C-alpha cells in the first residue's frame, strides 16, 4: 500500500477528516469500547480530585463539604510520614529499575536463543504462571520458604547454622520485594520483548554470520538495536510510573517490616486517607503523586526524543 508522504516531515500527509473517518471507520469502531471504558473509569473519577481541596465528609457529599483550599497539601508537606513514604517509593522504584528492569530483557534474549520450540513453550509457561498468582499467595509462598518458621530457616536451625531473617528485616526489604517482583512478574514482562525479537529480520543474522560475526557481535549489532525502541518505550513507561511500585505487596508486608520501611505512597493514601476516614488527606496525597508522575512521563519522553527514539508519543 502506498501512502502519501509529506515532503517536509516524511510522515503521512494530513487528509481531509471526512476521508480519514471513512478510511478508519472500522478501526475507530473497534477502539470505541476501550475509549468509553477509559472515559468512565479513568476520566470521570478525576472529578473526585476536588475532595483534595476540601474537608471532605462522605456524609455531606462532594457538593456540601467545606472548602479547605490548599490546607491538605500544607499538612502533607509538613508530615514526616508522608516524606518517609515518598522516600521509600523512590528508593524502591530505583532499586527495581536497576535490578528488575533488565531481567525480562535478559530472559527474553535467553529464551529466544533456545532452539527447541517445545522447550521454549514449556519455559515460557512456567515463567508466566506466577503472574497470575495474587500477591497474597506469592508472599505466603515466600513466607513458607524464607520466613522465620519457613523451610529454609527450619533447616538452618536444625543444623545449627543460625537463622536468616529475610521476611522481617527492614534493611533488606528493598531486595526482598524486588526479588518477589522478579519471581512474579519477570516472566510476564518478557512478552513484549519476545514480540520485538520476533520482528527482527532474520536475514540480518544470516548476513552477519556469513560475514563472520560471532554470537556476541550479532547480539550487540543486530538484536539490541532491534530491541532499542521497545526498551526505551518500556523505560519511559517505567519512569512515568516511578511513584507506583505496587500496593498489595506492601500492604501485606507492612506489618512484617514496619511502616517506616514498607510505607509507599499508595499505602500512605490508604492508611492515612481511607482507613482513618481522612479522605481529603488521602486524595491530596494521591493528587500529589499523579502530578509528579505526569512530570516524570513528560520528562522521560523528552529524554527518549533526545536519544532519537519515538518514546510514548510525538507531536
Amino acid at each position, binding site marked *: 500500500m502506498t501512502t502519501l508522504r509529506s515532503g517536509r516531515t516524511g510522515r503521512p500527509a494530513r487528509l481531509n477528516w471526512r476521508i480519514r473517518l471513512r478510511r478508519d471507520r472500522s478501526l475507530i469502531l473497534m477502539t470505541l469500547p476501550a475509549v468509553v471504558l477509559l472515559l468512565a473509569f479513568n476520566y470521570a473519577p478525576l472529578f473526585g480530585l476536588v475532595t483534595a481541596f476540601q*474537608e471532605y*465528609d*462522605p*456524609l*455531606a*457529599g462532594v457538593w*456540601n*463539604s*467545606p472548602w479547605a483550599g490548599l490546607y491538605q497539601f500544607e499538612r502533607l508537606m509538613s508530615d514526616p*510520614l508522608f516524606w518517609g513514604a515518598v522516600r521509600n517509593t523512590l528508593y524502591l522504584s530505583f532499586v527495581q529499575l536497576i535490578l528488575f528492569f533488565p531481567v525480562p530483557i535478559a530472559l527474553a534474549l535467553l529464551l529466544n536463543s533456545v532452539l527447541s520450540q517445545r522447550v521454549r513453550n514449556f519455559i515460557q509457561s512456567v515463567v508466566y504462571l506466577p503472574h497470575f498468582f495474587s500477591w497474597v499467595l506469592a508472599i505466603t509462598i515466600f*513466607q513458607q520458604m524464607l*520466613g*522465620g*518458621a*519457613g523451610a529454609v*530457616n*527450619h533447616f538452618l*536451625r*536444625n543444623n545449627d547454622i543460625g537463622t536468616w531473617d529475610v*521476611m*522481617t528485616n*527492614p534493611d533488606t526489604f528493598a531486595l526482598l520485594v524486588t526479588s518477589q517482583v522478579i519471581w512474579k512478574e519477570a516472566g510476564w514482562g518478557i512478552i513484549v520483548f519476545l514480540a520485538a525479537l520476533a520482528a527482527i529480520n532474520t536475514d540480518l543474522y544470516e548476513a552477519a554470520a556469513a560475514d563472520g560475526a560471532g554470537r556476541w557481535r550479532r547480539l550487540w549489532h543486530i538484536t539490541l538495536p532491534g530491541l532499542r525502541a521497545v526498551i526505551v518505550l518500556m523505560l519511559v513507561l517505567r519512569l512515568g510510573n516511578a511513584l507506583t511500585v505496587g500496593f498489595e505487596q506492601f500492604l*501485606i*508486608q*507492612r*506489618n*512484617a*517490616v*514496619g*511502616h*517506616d520501611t514498607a510505607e509507599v505512597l499508595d499505602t500512605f493514601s*490508604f*492508611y*492515612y486517607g*481511607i*482507613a*482513618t*476516614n*481522612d*479522605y481529603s488527606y488521602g486524595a491530596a496525597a494521591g493528587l500529589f503523586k499523579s502530578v509528579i508522575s505526569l512530570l516524570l512521563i513528560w520528562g522521560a519522553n523528552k529524554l527518549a526524543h533526545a536519544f532519537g527514539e519515538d518514546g510514548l508519543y510525538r507531536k
Partner: protein
Amino acid sequence: MGNELNRRSFLNAAVSAAGLVAMGPLLSACGGSGAQRAGVNSDAGLKAVLPTYVPNPLIKPDIASIAGGPDVMTDPGFLSYPSNRIATVSGIPGKGGKYSAVTPLWGTIPPADSSFYQAMNKALGAQFEMKPADGNNYNTIVPTMTAAKKLPDWINLPGWWSSNFNTGGLVGNQLADLTPYLSGDNIKKYPNLAALPTAAWRAGAWGDKLYGIPAFSTGFKVAGAIFYRRDVLEAKGITADQVKSAEDLMNLGKELTDARAGVWAFDDVYRYTYTAFGAPLKWKVDNGKLVHLYETQEFLDAADWSRKLAVAGYVHPDALAGDNAGGSTRFYGGKTLISATGTGVWNLSDYQSGQAANPNYRRGAFNFFSADGKSAPRVDTGSATDIVSYLNINLKPEQIEECLAIANYLAAPFGSAEYTMVNFGVEGTHFTMQGGVPTPTDAGKKEVQAQTYPFLAAPAAVISTQSAPNVTKDITSWQAANVKALSKPVFWGMNISMPQAQATADAAQPVEDTLKDVIHGKKSIEDLKNAATTWKSSGGGDRLIQWMNDNVLQKYGTGQ
C-alpha cells in the same frame, strides 16, 4: 484505634461503643461540616426509648447464669440440644420483599446460590441476597460502600470498627432510625427481640435513638482472653492457676518455646494483655482529669513486656511477620501454645478443628491476672455486644417492619425450631440428628456453618457445644471463676460519635503503626513514647482529649 486486619480489635469496642444520647446540634456545630452526627447516648434520654425487656422462659438451660456486678453475668450453658424444638414464630414473617445483606465472615465464603439460602428465603418469606464479606478486611470494604452511599438494605457494622466506619455519622444519614418501631412496648410485637437483654440494645443506640439490632449479646463481655493448649501444658504439668502475673507468663515462654521443633510459646498477645498492666482500654479518669491510654506509663510498660517477649524469641515468626490470619492454624497445629484472642473462638467448631489436628486438643484460658501479681485482677467489660446490624435508611416503613419481623425470626432462642433452621438448616439436607445433637452434613458445613444470618440478628448468647459437653463445662467454669473480675470501663455503654478530625485522631494510625513495630521487637519504647507525643501535639491527640472531656465527660459523666 488501630486498623488491625483481624478481629482482635474487640478491645476498641468497649470504648467506642458503649450507650449515651442527643448531642446532634452540638456536634454539627463543631464538626465544621453539614453532616449531622448522632452524638452520645444520655442516661435519661436512652432509658426513655430502650425497648421493654420480656424474657422468654420457654427453654431452660442446664447450667444457669451467675450474676457478677451490674450488667454482668455468665452465659447460661446447655449440655445437650433441646429436644422438643419449640416454634416461637407463628406463620411466615416476610411478605415477599427483596433485600440485600452484607455481613462479615471469618472463614470461607459459602456459595452464593446454595440450597440453604433458598430454604431460608422460603422460611423467611422474603428473597435475601446474602453477601458475606471477608471479616479480616471488612474494615476496608465497608468505607468504600459508605463513601459511595451504596450500603445494602441490611448490614452488620461491628462496634469495634465504629470509628473506622463512622457509624455514629451513618445513623440517620444512611441507616434507618428504628426507635418508632422498637422503643418501649412497641417491641412486644417482636417477642424474640424483646427477649434480648436491655444492655444489648444500648450497643446499637446512638444519640438516644435505636438504630442497631444486636446479635450474640452477652452479659460476660470481655475483649478476649489468653488461651493456651490445655492438653499440651497439662502434659507438661502446667496448670492455669500457676499463671498469676506477667512474669509467670513470660517464664512460660522460655519453658515452652522449642524453635528447633517448630514450636513457639506465643502468638501476638499484646491486645489482650495490656490492660493487665493497669492500662485503661482507652480512657481513664484520674482525679477528675481525662487521660488517654497513650499518656499512661502502663501503656508503655505493657508494650515493653510484649516487646521483650518478641525479642526473647518466644513469639512465632509468622506472627511477627504480621500474619494474624494464620494464628488459629498455628494454634491447632501446636506451633504456638499460647494465643490471645476474642472469647468468641471458644466453641464447638474450634474443638472440632483442633481435634482434626490433634485428637487430644483442648483449649483452656488463663484466669485474668494483674501484671504485678499482687493487685486484684480486673478486666474491662465491653458493651453487651459488638455485633450490631443496621437497616438502610432508604427502606420504606413497611419494609422496615418486614425486616424486623424477620429479625424476630432470626433472634429465636437457642434450641427453638427457628434457631435450628437458622443455625443448622434443613434436617436431612444440612444436618442430621445424631445422639440428640444436630450434626452438619457436608452440605451443611459448607453452606450453613459459615454463619451469615446470625450476623443480622441472633438471640442472647448461650454456651453450648452439644456434641462436646466438656467444652461447655470448661467455658462455663472459666466464666464463673472470672465473673467477679469484670468491671465497667470509663464511658461504658456510651456510643460516642465524633467529628471527622477527632475520629481520625482516635484511629491514631501513626501510634498504632509504631506500637506494632515495638511489640514485634523492631522499635524501642522510646520510639513509642515519641510517637505518642507527636500524636498528642500534631496528630490531633490533645484536641481529641479536650473534645472528649468537654463534650462527653463534663456533660454525661463516665457512664460507669
